[in-house]
C-alpha cells in the first residue's frame, strides 16, 4: 500500500499550505494524477479520509484530475497519447514507445476555508 505513503505526503503538503495561508480548514483538495502514474486513484481515495482525520483537511472533498499519458513513438517519430503503459501506439500499433508525460502525482490546488472557519462540525 504505497498509496498510504503518498496520501501521507498529501497531508504534509496540505497542512503546510494551510498554515502558510492562515487557514484552519481545507474544504477541497485537488490532485493531478497522470494516467501513467504509479498509483491507482481509487486507492488514494480509499486512504484519504483515514489519513486526513485530525488534520485541517478532515472531511475535505478530494478531487482527482487525470492528466493524459504522453509518449514518443520511435517508429512514427511523433508524440502520441496513450492511456496505459501496455497500450500500443494509436497510429502505427507498435510498442516502441517512450513515456514522456502523464506520470505526475501532484497536489494541484486547495480550497481553503474562510479565516476563523474550522472543520469541526459544531
Amino acid at each position: 500500500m504505497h498509496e498510504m505513503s503518498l496520501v501521507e505526503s498529501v497531508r504534509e503538503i496540505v497542512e503546510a499550505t494551510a498554515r502558510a495561508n492562515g487557514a484552519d480548514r481545507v474544504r477541497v483538495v485537488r490532485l493531478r494524477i497522470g494516467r501513467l502514474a504509479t498509483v491507482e486513484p481509487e486507492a488514494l481515495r480509499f486512504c484519504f479520509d483515514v489519513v486526513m482525520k485530525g488534520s485541517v483537511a478532515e472531511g475535505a472533498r478530494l478531487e482527482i484530475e487525470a492528466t493524459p499519458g504522453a509518449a514518443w513513438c520511435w517508429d512514427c517519430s511523433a508524440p502520441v497519447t496513450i492511456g496505459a503503459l501496455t497500450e500500443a501506439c494509436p497510429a502505427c500499433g507498435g510498442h516502441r514507445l517512450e513515456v514522456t508525460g502523464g506520470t505526475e502525482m501532484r497536489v494541484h490546488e486547495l480550497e481553503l476555508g474562510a479565516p476563523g472557519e474550522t472543520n469541526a462540525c459544531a
Partner: protein
Amino acid sequence: MCVTCGCGPILADGHAHEMGHGAHDHGHAHGTGPRGLGIWKEPAPRVVSVEQDLLAKNDRHAAANRQRFARAGVLALNLVSSPGSGKTTLLVETLTRLRGRRPVAVVEGDQQTSLDADRIAATGAPVVQLNTGKGCHLDALQVERALDELPLPSGGVLFIENVGNLVCPASFDLGEAHKVVVLSVTEGDDKPLKYPDMFLAADLCLVTKSDLLPYVPFDADRAIANARRINPRLECLVLSTLKGDGFDAWVDWIDRECAARGTLPAGAPAAAALERRA
C-alpha cells in the same frame, strides 16, 4: 423553521431556535435577513495553487543520497522484484565474484527479520538490514539513515536489495544509478505486462533461474519482448545463479557501469580512489 437545516421553529426576532439543534449536532450561522430567514452563505472559498509533487520529499532525500554516492564514486544499484525471485541468492553470488576486485556494501530491505543480512554478512560484505515493518517498499530517507551506519564502498558498488514487491518500490527513487529488476523463470513470461510500472522504472532486467527453463513453460524471448514493449530501452540478461550460465555477463555489466561512472577499475587498490577524488 430554520431554513438552513429545517429544525425547530425560528423566532421572529432573530436567530435562536426554540428547540435548539437538539439531537443533531451541526451548528451553523443563521441568516440576518427579515425574521431571521435569510439563508446564510458560506464565504467564498480561497483557492490557492500548490503544484507540489507527492514524492517531492522522497526525491529530495534521493538527491542527497545520489550526491553522496557520486562523491564517494559509488555505483548504487536498487534490486527490485517479486518475493522469491532469487535476489538474495543472486546477490550472495555477485558479492562472492566481486570479492577482492571491488569494494562492496549492501543495504537489505525486508519487512521482518535479519535473515537476508545474515546471508550477506557471511560473504564478508558490510551490510545493514532495514526492516520496514508493515511497509511495502524502501524510501530514500530510510536508505539515508542506513548510510549513516554503513561505510560507503569508495570506488565500488552499493547494492540495495528492496522489499520483495513488484509494485510499490517502482515509485520510490532511492538515489540509485539504476533499478535492476529480477524476473525468475518460475514467474511467468507475461509478468512485465501485468506489472508494467517496475519494468518501466528499471534499466536492466535479469531473467534468473534459467537452469529451470527446461521444466517450466516460460519463454525467455517472449518475456524479454514483453518487457521491451513496456520499456524499449531495457537491457536484459538471462542467467542462472545456481549453475553460473550467463552470470559473467551480469558481472561485466557491473564493471561497465563502474567504468562509465569513473569508479575504480576492478582490482585497483582503494588508495587510487582517494587520489582520484582529491
